[in-house]
């Protein structure tokens, strides 16, 4: 109201505004959603680095970097979906579904490696579109719809696999024709010798960095990103100004499925094996990482970098506990506390962002 009044008394103001100084610089950095996760990640790193010896040793670090990367790819995709106002609980099972599909096609049917990869890619897109269509057409909460898809996939992963190959896991992929080609893209690694200890960076980590970079670019610098924030923040308003809500949401569900496919391929070609239960139980981990990274559960706010940092925290805590010699059962308790803490911080940040400055 005060702005309106002042504008009338002096309609012509210079383009540079003296009132900007107070709210720029440091304040605009602190306004970013991923700040909390960054601070937490640094604190957790320092804690484990100072209290254990193995944590920062190159071979030790390789382990938590690997975990963070795998979870991170999914967390980044899930964060986009959450900013768009939806959940995908089938994301974890998708990881197994795609791995099993490609694995079975290659070992049992000796299909060409690229065709096998393409087949699971198509399957992932179909499941993503189905998830999206079900949510958008029925108007049901995505939480329920994808919970359904999750159970269907979990059941199919076991049932179909047993019917086709009479066991619950695919093994011996390294003997399948064309394995090496797929392995180069998804399963290779770089070894760096650092003072007697070897740092192993797997392909998954490069994919993670790339996925995070692309997701951030899309979110902040493209029309699609603008639409993702809008459909999550106020779907009706977005539709009214001409945002293609339907297309945006379907795209987000497909993106999450594609991330599941990517992680499925990365896991399959790195380990040469995949279990029927691969990925099951991970779906909430992705959501926790996204929330720790600054995503609001109600949508419309969050960050891909934040989700990547959330995954980094998850990887560091999981491995740090082991190096501390603590019982790894504590991981879940710690995750729960972090989730609650993050939700409180996010709500505080949100109300700050909406308050009149």
């Amino acid at each position: 109201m005060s702005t309106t009044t002042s504008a009338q008394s002096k309609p012509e103001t210079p383009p540079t505004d003296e009132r900007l100084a107070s709210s720029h610089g440091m304040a605009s950095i602190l306004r970013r959603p991923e700040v909390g996760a960054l601070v937490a990640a640094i604190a957790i790193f320092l804690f484990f680095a100072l209290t254990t010896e193995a944590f920062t040793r190159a071979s030790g670090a390789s382990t938590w970097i690997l975990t963070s990367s795998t979870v991170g790819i999914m967390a980044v995709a899930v964060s986009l979906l959450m900013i768009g106002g939806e959940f995908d609980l089938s994301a974890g099972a998708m990881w197994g579904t795609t791995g099993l599909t490609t694995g079975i096609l290659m070992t049992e049917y000796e299909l060409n490696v690229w065709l096998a990869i393409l087949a699971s890619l198509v399957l992932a897109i179909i499941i993503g579109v189905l998830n999206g269509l079900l949510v958008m057409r029925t108007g049901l909460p995505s939480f329920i719809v994808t919970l359904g898809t999750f159970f269907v996939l979990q059941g199919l992963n076991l049932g179909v696999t047993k019917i086709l190959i009479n066991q619950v896991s695919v093994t011996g992929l390294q003997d399948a024709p064309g394995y090496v080609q797929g392995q180069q893209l998804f399963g290779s690694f770089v070894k760096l010798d650092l003072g007697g200890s070897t740092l192993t960076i797997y392909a998954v980590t490069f994919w993670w960095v790339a996925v995070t970079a692309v997701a951030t670019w899309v979110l902040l610098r493209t029309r699609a990103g603008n639409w993702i924030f809008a459909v999550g923040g106020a779907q009706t308003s977005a539709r009214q100004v001409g945002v293609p809500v339907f297309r945006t949401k379907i795209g987000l569900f497909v993106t999450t499925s594609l991330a599941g496919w990517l992680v499925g391929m990365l896991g399959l070609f790195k380990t040469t094996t995949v279990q029927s239960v691969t990925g099951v139980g991970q779906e909430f981990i992705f959501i926790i990482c996204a929330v720790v990274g600054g995503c609001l559960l109600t949508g419309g706010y969050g960050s891909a970098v934040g989700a990547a940092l959330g995954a980094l925290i998850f990887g560091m805590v999981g491995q740090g506990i082991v190096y501390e010699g603590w019982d790894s059962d504590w991981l879940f308790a710690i995750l729960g506390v972090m989730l609650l803490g993050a939700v409180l911080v996010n709500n505080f940040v949100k109300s700050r962002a909406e308050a009149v400055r």
Partner: protein
Amino acid sequence: MSSKGTADTPSEADHGSPGPPPAGEAVIEVRDIGKSYGSVIALRDVTTSVRAGQVTCVLGDNGAGKSTFIKILAGAHQHTSGEFLVDGEPQRMSSPRDALSMGIATVYQDLAVVSLMPVWRNFFLGSEVTKGVGPLRRLDTAAMKSITKSEMQAMGIDLRDVDQPIGTLSGGERQCVAIARAVYFGARVLILDEPTAALGVRQSGVVLKYIAKARDRGLGVVFITHNPHHAFPVGDRFMLLRRGRSMGDFAKDEVSQDELVNMMAGGSELAEISSELSSDMGPASPVAKQMEADVQHK
């Protein structure tokens, strides 16, 4: 895709794509238009016109059919009877996008803003300015920020920071962003759904000023309100709705403000309320006396 010419060439956008038609020419005409949902008739036999450089006020109490009427104009609903002409051509629009492409923009009561997003992102939402091609096609954030700032200044609102979430603006300012947005994107007809309903006296005055400003720029404005005191000062044409029916369509010189107020409230109903009040509160109570005076005054 939605990237019409205006989105990619911002410098030309405020002239509007086809340019506003000469003042006084009818852009939208509706003849005996109606809408029914199954057996429920929400609106029937409504006739009026929207002319360039004029304000058409749609007046009606709650439930009079105002929302149904604007939803037809905005392309959100299709009419089930009557004729809907845009530039003299019969039209049947299937989505708000169709209406937008004909230059009919709607500013809804909830303003169609996303409160957590910055002002400039809201301003360009759905019609973002981009630069670059192919995978490098990206938002031109600098251009969008400066256009937002200057367009808001043209409307008389000086924003500190276009990066602040739009939720931090006051109601009148948000209304202004929505109007400025519609005008910038080449609207020829601006439909305002109860823009003054949630505002105080001062802010309402500010919004009325923007309505007049939009009219002076050659736009046809449809101003929906239940307040004849807001409608009369800016309106050129008044269409009254009551219980889904049109009570008449008047030019400004055919009707006085008092007549409008009376038709709005419905003379007989007003008398009824007046007698009810005096029996409830006693004929000497100030409220009942005022009501009595109003009834006699007409």
